[in-house]
């Protein structure tokens, strides 16, 4: 058996277990070692993936596991983002007595779950990866046991997440019953010979799968958990939930819908259109009414998921690569946005309200400028990267002859621009109500600067990453 295909995941698993043990023997004052080791593990995993980049698409474990270009790109993105999350969250955790080894081991297990989701090639492995990720995330949300709101959020997240997993699993079992295979290739062969619109059972299974995926994306009408969990979870955990998992969910969506059921596109396209349109409308309009910045970002995420779904539902290669570009750049943007919230918080004070942004330009012009970049990137204003993501998605949608959908999307983007502008307004036009100095360690500030300038750099030279996404999708779907 060809274990080498899965070296990065195997390494990550072993190293995380090792870290768990190591942490037991560390003094509380040496917790920093756990943090450093976690970063080392992530870097090593990235290196392991990078060394395999040039190899052709290959499968392992009887075709249950696949390593292709798309997987490599998404995995590297996930790992880099998790590294960023760890850097940003270090001081935040330290000041709230959450700087514990478990945060890192749980985070790494969640990461492992994401990597498995990304490389999953059968429905069973998809489910296993998803559960590994979700369980670790549930625990992370409840990481502050004594915080009532966090516990409530964790409970909500757990119950709704379990329902979502159940729906997904039910849909998968129907597919298995029809096709007699848990393998996506087997499903693909079955679907290719069926007329999806006539086959009620298949359509039934598909509906459950879409509902499950919709939950995990946080697409309307399966979005109820998103704002509550974003708000209730400690900001460091919100940052984790709001970034990397979206990439993993994107990956399983592509695996299930495109690799498994591309011939059923007529069926899932319509369902996704509904989800996308509702997400765009609800996400953008409800975000306007929010005063809590984390809830606002939650609804903004929902609307961005609408855009990612629009890319997927175009059902053409441009669309898949556009959605992938969108997911990656959105995750980076959102990472920066949460970093600013963490920055504004300090010991005994949680930045929660939009008004906490007031006068940031007076307090610290550079951070304000970074937040400006994140906000305009999310709003999709050129020359920031969010614009090219939207451009690519719109191009794919028009290619699929869905003009009305493109119009809905741009009108909603204009409505959405309002609440991003409001954040900028607080930072630049209003006087500060809170003059406390903003403190952060050097790693935090330099990463934040890189993160913000990346918005600009990717916006001025979007061609490279876009080209990589196109290539990855093309090579992965070619097999």
């Amino acid at each position: 058996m060809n274990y080498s295909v899965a070296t990065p995941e195997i390494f990550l698993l072993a190293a995380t277990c090792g870290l768990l043990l190591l942490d037991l023997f560390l003094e509380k004052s040496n917790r920093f070692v756990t943090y450093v080791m976690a970063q080392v593990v992530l870097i090593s995993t990235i290196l392991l993936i990078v060394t395999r980049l040039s190899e052709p698409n290959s499968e392992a474990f009887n075709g249950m596991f696949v390593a292709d270009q798309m997987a490599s790109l998404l995995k590297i993105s996930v790992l880099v983002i998790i590294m960023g999350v760890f850097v940003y969250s270090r001081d935040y955790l330290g000041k709230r007595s959450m700087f514990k080894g478990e945060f890192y081991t749980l985070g790494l297990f969640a990461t492992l779950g994401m990597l498995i989701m990304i490389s999953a090639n059968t429905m069973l492995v998809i489910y296993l990866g998803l559960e590994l990720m979700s369980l670790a995330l549930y625990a992370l949300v409840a990481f502050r046991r004594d915080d009532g709101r966090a516990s409530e959020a964790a409970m909500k997240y757990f119950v709704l997440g379990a329902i979502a997993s159940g729906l997904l699993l039910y849909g998968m079992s129907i597919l298995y019953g029809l096709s007699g295979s848990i393998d996506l290739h087997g499903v693909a062969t079955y679907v290719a010979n069926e007329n999806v619109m006539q086959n009620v059972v298949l359509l039934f299974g598909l509906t459950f799968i879409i509902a499950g995926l919709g939950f995990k994306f946080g697409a309307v009408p399966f979005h109820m958990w998103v704002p509550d969990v974003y708000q209730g979870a400690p900001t460091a955990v919100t940052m984790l939930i709001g970034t990397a998992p979206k990439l993993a969910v994107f990956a399983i969506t592509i695996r299930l819908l495109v690799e498994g059921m591309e011939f059923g596109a007529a069926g899932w396209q319509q369902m996704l259109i509904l989800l996308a349109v509702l997400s765009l409308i609800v996400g953008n309009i409800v975000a306007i009414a929010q005063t809590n910045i984390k809830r606002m970002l939650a609804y903004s995420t929902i609307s961005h998921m609408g855009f990612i779904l629009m890319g997927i539902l175009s059902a053409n290669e441009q669309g898949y690569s556009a959605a992938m570009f969108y997911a990656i750049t959105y995750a980076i943007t959102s990472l920066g946005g949460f970093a600013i919230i963490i920055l504004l918080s300090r010991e005994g004070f949680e930045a929660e309200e939009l008004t906490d942004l007031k006068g940031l330009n007076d307090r610290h012009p550079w951070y304000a400028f970074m937040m400006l970049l994140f906000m305009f990137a999310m709003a999709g204003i050129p020359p920031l990267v969010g614009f090219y993501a939207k451009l690519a998605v719109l191009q794919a949608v028009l290619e699929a002859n869905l003009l009305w959908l493109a119009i809905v999307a741009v009108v909603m983007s204009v409505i959405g621009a309002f609440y991003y502008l409001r954040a900028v307004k607080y930072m630049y036009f209003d006087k500060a109500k809170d003059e406390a100095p903003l403190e952060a360690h050097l790693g935090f500030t330099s990463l934040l600067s890189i993160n913000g300038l990346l918005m600009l750099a990717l916006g001025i030279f979007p061609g490279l990453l876009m080209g990589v996404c196109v290539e990855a999708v093309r090579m992965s779907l070619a097999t």
Partner: protein
Amino acid sequence: MDNWALLSLLIWLPIVGGIAVLMAGDHWCRPMALVVSIVTFVVSLPLWIGFDAATAAMQFEEKRLWIQTFGIHYHLGIDGLSMPLILLNTFITMIIVIAGWEVIQKKPAQYMAAFLIMEGIINGVFAAQDAMLFYVFFEAMLIPMFIVIGVWGGANRVYATIKFFLYTFLGSVFMLISLIYLYNQGGSFAITDMHHMKIGMTAQILIFLSFLLAFGVKVPMWPVHTWLPDAHVEAPTGGSIILAAIMLKIGGYGFLRFSLPIVPDASEELTWLIMLMSLTAIVYIGFIALVQQDMKKLVAYSSIAHMGFVTMGFFLMFAIHKNTGSYDGSVLAMQGGMVQMVSHGFISGAMFLSIGVLYDRMHTREISAYGGVANRMPIFAGFFVLFAMANSGLPGTSGFVGEFMVILASFKASFWIAFLAATTLIVGAAYSLWLVKRTIFGGVANDEVALLQDVNKREFFMLAVLAFFVLLLGLWPDPLTHVMGVSIEHLINHASQSKLPN
């Protein structure tokens, strides 16, 4: 043609300079900003000197692949339509830097940097020959402008700046869809490729409407003009100047670069709509200007009326063709529109600058707070009267040339269009001169006016330079019409051919 990447320099020099000014901090920002803006202006002069007026082809071209996935090129070039506007931009930015010298005390480095970055972006708009590159610059411009109005603006600045941003953003997103549609059909974002595409009538109409929305909001045309008075009133003097002098021109330029050559059949079909909107702007908005109590609002409305001449001049060719069966006279109309754009850049800039001079002393823009300013500020009064005359289209000033050309050409289209357009000579004179009468002349109205000091050297210099150009262009417009002549003929020739697929 010599090519030193002059256009790239014109885009990136002010942007990099702006960032340097930001880094330099509040103490050194003013001289640095001045140096950057002067250097940029000097760099833009070779465009004029080295310009070949005998060809309509793109000059000073630069082309590099930018985004491979969509075949988007970093493609710059100018012709007779864009060259004067770039020069206008680099010139006006200098004035803005000088105008903000003492006036801006709050975060001057950020102020100067915002205008320099904006200068670079606007140069990019005029130089872009790739539709997506154009769009990127077109939108990017909103960010610094949003900040400028919001940070240095008046009391109601937040409302004004968000309205400005959302209005223009809404206008342009539909253009984005049209551009992507054109790309999907023709496989290229190059503007010249779009010029040669065959497009069916329904698509043309939709594309035309989306362009109309994008550029019409920018111009702004009635009835999507309502953001402009708000933005102007709340913006700081520099913001008002760049809005009126440059940003509005981008809308007019967009019609020439996109609407007319890409969708000529739809343009012909919907010329009545443009004529209706333009004439409403000229007549109705002119009357609205008459009743304003706020000086800036008055000039803002007069800007809308003047821009009505621009859009009318650009689309008269179809009306003339319909009436006479030939395109004779179209060149005159379009040249009139272009001259009007450049001239309005100087005049409106000068008007807002003059109002800024008064506002810095009195901190009010209410017309009723003034009266008899001439007694205390004779030099300023001289300039103000000159600019107001130019604003009302007095022969000998640049304001006359453009309007006269358009009115003259419009006689070929229809007597009534010409008649309605010509009412501006009365209405325009009415609101401009009445403004002068109420503020400048008469006895000293109150104690505050009695304490006014006349213009200082800095203000005198700016007003004198602007006055010079207003008169120069009024007496000798030939250099301007000369450089754009061939490009306009080429454009009319192109737009007069149907692009419907057979």
